[in-house]
């Protein structure tokens, strides 16, 4: 099991630590736990985990701060855990480099899905990013700028394509409003969430079977969007 992915859990609640450790160990991961921010930072530096699961409410320091300090030297995926109604903190952590979030209480399948996405992205950072993304009947070819729904090519405007390509390249990950606006539009447009609302609606109309109940472009309320592709 020496090749088992290593996950560092930084959370001060013993019950949560116990539950996550039990489940992840059962699933074949190697798990280390820390209950304080400083301890977590030290363990991250010495153990170089493949994924960090980080609670935002730590006793000794702000989770967003832990995120910032980790990002100073490592690109390892960070999954944030936090309670409901702290959208601002989640967005702050995501904008400081966290990759994903889970709201407590969460289901284990959600946690495992996040972990899988994080592992995939940590490998794709090492240069094996797939250029063709499939999601149900959708096919997005990032190299040739082609989008197909079934056998039919979908006509997208330049902005629509740029937006979809950004979402698809990061499939599975939550993308904050600000990061989408900055990357697809311009840093100066980072507050214009209304652009997103309109373009996401247009994209959903062109791509989704039922735009009101999207399967591929999901809204993360108060945070951003997430593109769901086939595993």
């Amino acid at each position, binding site marked *: 099991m020496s090749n088992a992915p290593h996950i560092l859990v930084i959370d001060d609640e013993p019950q949560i630590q116990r539950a996550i450790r039990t489940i992840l160990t059962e699933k074949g991961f190697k798990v280390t736990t820390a209950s304080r921010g400083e301890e977590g930072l030290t363990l991250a530096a010495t153990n170089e985990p493949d994924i960090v699961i980080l609670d935002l409410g730590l006793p000794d320091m702000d989770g967003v701060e832990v995120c910032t300090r980790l990002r100073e030297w490592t690109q390892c995926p960070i999954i944030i855990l936090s309670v409901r109604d702290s959208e601002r903190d989640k967005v702050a952590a995501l904008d400081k480099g966290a990759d994903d979030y889970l709201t407590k209480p969460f289901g284990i399948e959600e946690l495992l899905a996040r972990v899988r996405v994080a592992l995939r992205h940590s490998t794709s950072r090492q240069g094996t990013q797939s250029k063709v993304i499939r999601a149900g009947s959708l096919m997005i070819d990032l190299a040739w700028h082609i989008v197909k729904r079934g056998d039919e090519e979908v006509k*997208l405007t330049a902005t629509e394509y740029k937006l979809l390509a950004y979402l698809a390249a990061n499939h599975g990950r939550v993308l904050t409003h600000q990061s989408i606006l900055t990357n697809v539009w311009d840093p100066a447009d980072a507050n214009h969430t209304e652009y997103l609302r309109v373009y996401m609606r247009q994209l959903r109309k062109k791509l989704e079977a039922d735009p009101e109940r999207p399967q591929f472009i999901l809204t993360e309320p108060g945070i951003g969007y997430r593109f769901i592709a086939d595993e």
Partner: protein
Amino acid sequence: MVVAVVISQLVGRMQASLIAATAREREATQLYELSIALTGLHNEHAIAQILARQVQEVSQGEHVELNLTGTEPFSFHLPEVSSPIRPPELTVSIQAARGNLGEILLWKSATPIASGEKRLLETFASQGALALERARLAQAESRAKVLEESDHLKSILLSSVSHELRTPLSTIKAASSSLRGNEVGWDSPARVELIEAIDDEADHLNMLVGNLLDMSRIESGAFKPKREWNILSEIVGSVLARMRHSADEHKIEIDVSENLPFVPVDYVQMEQVFTNLVSNSLKYAPSNTLIRIRANIQNDTIHVQVSNQGPQVPTEHLERIFDKFYRITAADRVTGTGLGLSICKGIIEAHGGQIWAENIPDGLAFNFTIPLIWEGVSAPSLPMDTETE
């Protein structure tokens, strides 16, 4: 000659007493005016200001300073500049039965302060002291009332909350302990059912705790919407997509055009308003009836209606159903915290809108409005994107 002197002395004395009488009359009038002005005032600052103005008017001094002591000390100056550097010509303390409440300082260098004037100012001060004492007593009384009220609400909260929390907890405990023991066989269908019950009830508990937290945030004023320009139909759509499992016994009809202007709302909070209004309709309206969600624009306001074909609410209850823990039916006959509608009210009001309920011919309708102008700006128009790939 003697007679003349006597007469002139008499005239002089009569004049003097006439002057004194006029002065006393004026004092009485001024005192009367002060007590009228102070009547019914329960605000210490207002009392202090009126008192200082009257002192200024009577004395014609160049500066009046009034200081109140107590838990919240307060100073008032007339004119509203800092006092002269030299010591005041007159200091009168505001003395009440329970002790000193403050002092009035008077600067008046032009003419010396007569003893009558000093006496009058002292009377003013004691009138002011009475009014201040009255105000403090009234405040203490209303504080006591508020405390009593909130004590009462807290005990309702505790009984409602413990009832509500215990129900899902009992289910969870029963299900998990039977799974732990050997009562349920490994491949028994009951196993799946018990696990589902634990999962559902945990979600339910989470929702209850969320409601309680929201309510306490609304009450402490910490509930600030994070407003952005949003598309209302998207919010309604996502709420209904999430609720479709619980809504399968009702028909839901949506008439919210996606071409309505942007609404300046907090996405998450608005989702909650729709979730709570629709859940309320699902809970009270019989199965197979229709729930309608409609939105239209009236001037610079969006008007949203969520209506159902459930029982009507007696007129006298229509307003009060938005009060927390207010129920028309007995608490043990319905589930919920009794907070859903009051949370909606808190959210809508934080957005500068209004919410109300009304009886309609075949049921009940919840209405709310939200201004479309946000910080003086109306809904933005969008950049054009006409080029194709």
